[in-house]
C-alpha cells in the first residue's frame, strides 16, 4: 500500500477547498493511504476531512512565539518544529503532494523523502519546480500577482481529475437527528426549499442592515435558517438582529462537523465568506457569496457549485435574481457568467488555462469574447509582441555592448509592465516575469540561455492569444453581418 503525504497549510475555507481533491484522489488511487500535514489552527476543521489515515499538526504560531521570546533557549523552537515532523521525515513516501504553495510549504515538502513530488517544490539546485502549469500559475512562491481562479478548481485541473463532491466526516447520531428534523420541516414547507444563511459572515462583511435585507429577500423563497457557530459573539449578533427587526428567525448553531450534516439538506446557502460556505458548496449545495464588490480573494475562495452575487444584484428591482439564482444550476468550473461583465481580470486566468489545454474556443472563451474590446486587446498584444521580439533581438546580438544591454533591459521592463496590466497578455507575461525574477543561475551564459528560452515560450503564448483574437474578431464581424 502506497503512502502519500498531503501537505495543506491553507486555512479556513481555502483549507476545505484544497481538500476537495481528496475524494477524487482516493477514488483514483483506492490503495493509497493519505496522511496530512497541516497547521495546528486547522485541527478543528480537519475533523470533517475524509480519506486521511493520520493528521500531523504543526503549530507555526507557537514555534514563532518560542523563537521570539528572549528567555526561551533557541533549541526549544527548533525542537518544536522538528519533533512534530520527525515521524514524517523517517517515512519513504510514494508521493508528497503540496497544495499549499507558499515558500514555507515548498521548502518543507521538498525535505521529505518521496518517489514523486506533486505541486510546488524546491530542488537541490535551489530552483522552484512545479509539476504543471496550474501550480506555476497559481502559486504564491514566485507569482507576486494574485490570480483570480478558484483554488479547488485549479487543483482539479492540475491533477486532471474531476472534482467530486466531498464526503465529509459526520457524526452518525447527529446525522439521524438532522435527517428527522429537516424531513419534518420540508413536509411543512410550502416551497420545499431549505435555505441556509451564514448570517455572521454577512453581518461581518456587510453590516446588520444588509444582513436583515438578505433575510427578508430570501424569506419568500423558502424556509430560511440562520446558521452560526456556538460562540457568544454569534449568539449576540443574532439576538441583535432579532431586536432590531422585531422578529425571531429560525436559527441553527453548528460546529463544522454538525454543519456537514445540516448542509446535506439545504437547497441553497448564502454567505459572505467562511468555512460554512465552503462545506456547503463542496456538499453539492448551491452556494452564493454575497459581496458588495468582486475581489480576487473571494473568487479564489469559491468552491464548486458556487458563485458571487453582489448586493446590487441581490437587491435589484428589475427582476427577481434570487429566484433565478435559487433555481439556476451553476455548473462546476470557472463559470463567471453571473459575475460583473466589465472586469476582465476575472477571466484572465481561465483564459490562459484554456489556452494551455488548446481549447481556446470553449464556453469560457466565448464569454471573454463578449466582454473585451477586441481592437484594444489586439493593439496591446502587438505592443507586447514587439517588446518580446526586441528583447530576443538584443539577446541574439552582442548583449555586452552598452546599447544592446540598455535596450534589453528596457524591453524586459516593458514586458514586466504588461504583467501588471489588465489585459489578455498579462497572465502569460506574469509567468514570464516570475520565472525571470526568480531564476537562480549564477552563470551569465546559463542565464542568457534561460531568459532566451522563456522569451520564446512567451512568444508562443502570445501567438496563441493572437490566433484567438483573430478568430474572435472574425466571428464578431460575421455575427454583425448576420445581424445577430
Amino acid at each position, binding site marked *: 500500500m502506497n503512502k502519500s503525504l498531503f501537505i495543506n497549510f491553507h486555512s479556513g475555507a481555502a483549507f476545505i477547498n484544497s481538500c476537495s481533491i481528496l475524494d477524487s484522489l482516493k477514488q483514483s488511487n483506492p490503495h493509497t493511504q493519505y496522511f496530512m500535514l497541516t497547521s495546528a489552527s486547522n485541527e478543528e476543521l480537519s475533523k470533517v476531512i475524509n480519506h486521511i489515515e493520520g493528521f500531523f499538526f504543526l503549530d507555526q504560531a507557537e514555534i514563532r512565539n518560542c523563537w521570539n521570546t*528572549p528567555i*526561551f*533557549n533557541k*533549541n526549544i523552537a527548533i525542537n518544536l518544529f*522538528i519533533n512534530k515532523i520527525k515521524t514524517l521525515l523517517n517515512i519513504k513516501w510514494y508521493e508528497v503532494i503540496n497544495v499549499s504553495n507558499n515558500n514555507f510549504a515548498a521548502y*518543507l515538502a521538498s525535505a521529505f*523523502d518521496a518517489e514523486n513530488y506533486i505541486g510546488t517544490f524546491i530542488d537541490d*539546485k*535551489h530552483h522552484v519546480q512545479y509539476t504543471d502549469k496550474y501550480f506555476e500559475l497559481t502559486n504564491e512562491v514566485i507569482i507576486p500577482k494574485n490570480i483570480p481562479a478558484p483554488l479547488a478548481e485549479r487543483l482539479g485541473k492540475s491533477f486532471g481529475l474531476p472534482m467530486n463532491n466531498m464526503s465529509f466526516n459526520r457524526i452518525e447520531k447527529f446525522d439521524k437527528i438532522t435527517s428527522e428534523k429537516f424531513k419534518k420541516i420540508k413536509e411543512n414547507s410550502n416551497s420545499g426549499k431549505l435555505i441556509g444563511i451564514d448570517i455572521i459572515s454577512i453581518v461581518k462583511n456587510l453590516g446588520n442592515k444588509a444582513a436583515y435585507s438578505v433575510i427578508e429577500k430570501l424569506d419568500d423563497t423558502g424556509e430560511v435558517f440562520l446558521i452560526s457557530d456556538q460562540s457568544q459573539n454569534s449568539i449576540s449578533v443574532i439576538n441583535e438582529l432579532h431586536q432590531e427587526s422585531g422578529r425571531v428567525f429560525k436559527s441553527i448553531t453548528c460546529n463544522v462537523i454538525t454543519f456537514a450534516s445540516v448542509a446535506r439538506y439545504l437547497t441553497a446557502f448564502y454567505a459572505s465568506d467562511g468555512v460554512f460556505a465552503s462545506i456547503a458548496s463542496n456538499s453539492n449545495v448551491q452556494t452564493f457569496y454575497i459581496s458588495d464588490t468582486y475581489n480576487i480573494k473571494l473568487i479564489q475562495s469559491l468552491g464548486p457549485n458556487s458563485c458571487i452575487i453582489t448586493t446590487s444584484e441581490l437587491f435589484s428591482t428589475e427582476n427577481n435574481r434570487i429566484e433565478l439564482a435559487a433555481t439556476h444550476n451553476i455548473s462546476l468550473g470557472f463559470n463567471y457568467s453571473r459575475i460583473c461583465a466589465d472586469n476582465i481580470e476575472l477571466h484572465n486566468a481561465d483564459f490562459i488555462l484554456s489556452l494551455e489545454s488548446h481549447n481556446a474556443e470553449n464556453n469560457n472563451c466565448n464569454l471573454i469574447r463578449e466582454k473585451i474590446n477586441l481592437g484594444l486587446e489586439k493593439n496591446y498584444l502587438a505592443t507586447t509582441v514587439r517588446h518580446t521580439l526586441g528583447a530576443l533581438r538584443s539577446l541574439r546580438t552582442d548583449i555586452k555592448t552598452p546599447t544592446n544591454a540598455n535596450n534589453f533591459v528596457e524591453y524586459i521592463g516593458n514586458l514586466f509592465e504588461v504583467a501588471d496590466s489588465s489585459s489578455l497578455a498579462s497572465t502569460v507575461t506574469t509567468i514570464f516575469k516570475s520565472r525571470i525574477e526568480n531564476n537562480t543561475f*549564477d552563470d551569465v551564459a546559463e542565464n542568457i540561455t534561460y531568459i532566451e528560452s522563456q522569451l520564446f515560450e512567451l512568444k508562443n503564448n502570445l501567438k496563441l492569444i493572437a490566433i484567438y483574437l483573430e478568430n474572435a474578431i472574425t466571428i464578431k464581424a460575421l455575427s454583425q453581418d448576420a445581424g445577430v
Partner: protein
Amino acid sequence: MSSTIIIETSKTGLSIPKVNGVYLHSTLDPIKEAEAFARTQITRTEKTNAILILGLGFAYHVDELMKQLRATNRHCNIKVIEPNKGLVQAYLDNINASPNFQIISDNDIVRLYQETEFINFLKLKPVIISHNNSFNANKTFFSTMLSYRASLQMQDFVDKVDDLNFRSYLIEQSTQIDSLHQLIDHVASARDINRNDKLLLAFSQIIGSTARSGEASQ
C-alpha cells in the same frame, strides 16, 4: 547558595523563617500580612490562570492567594520559585504535607529555562508575582532570572536539539557560523541545498524576519 535559616514563631503562633537575619513574614501576624498581599495581587491575576510567584517563604502569601482565588471559583496553575533549597526543605518539614502548588527549587537559571515543564508553563504567559521579602533575600538570583536572555550563539544550543540528524547538521555548521540567522542567510543564498538546508529554510519561513529582529533586540 549557603544561608542561615532560623525558624521563629510569630505573635500569632505561626512558624516564620528568618533567612540570613531577615524575616520573610510578619513577626506579628503572617496571615494578616498575607491577606493584604493577596488582596493587592489578585486583580493582576484576572486575565490568566497561570501564576508564577517569586519566593516561597513559608507560603502564607501563596496559601492566602489560593484561598481568595477559590472564593471566586477560580482554579489557577500556580508555581513558586524558591532558589534556597534549605528553605524549601524547612517549609516542607514545617507543613508536614504536600503543598497544593508546585515549588521549583533550581538555582541554575540556564538549566531552569531548559526544563520542558517550566517552559510549557511560561507559554501560558503567567502573571509574575513577587513576594518582596523573599525576592530581596535572593535578589541576585531573581533579578538574573527575570533579565535572562537565551544565547543566540549556535554553539550554546545546538547540542540540545533533540533530532540527531538535524543536531549533527547544526553542530557541523556551528563550527564555521556563529548564529542561526547567519546560517539561514548563508543557506538562503546557496546554489546547492540538501534536505537539512530545506528544513532550515522552512523553519526560517516560520520565524520570519523576526529571526533577525529578535536577535537584534537582544
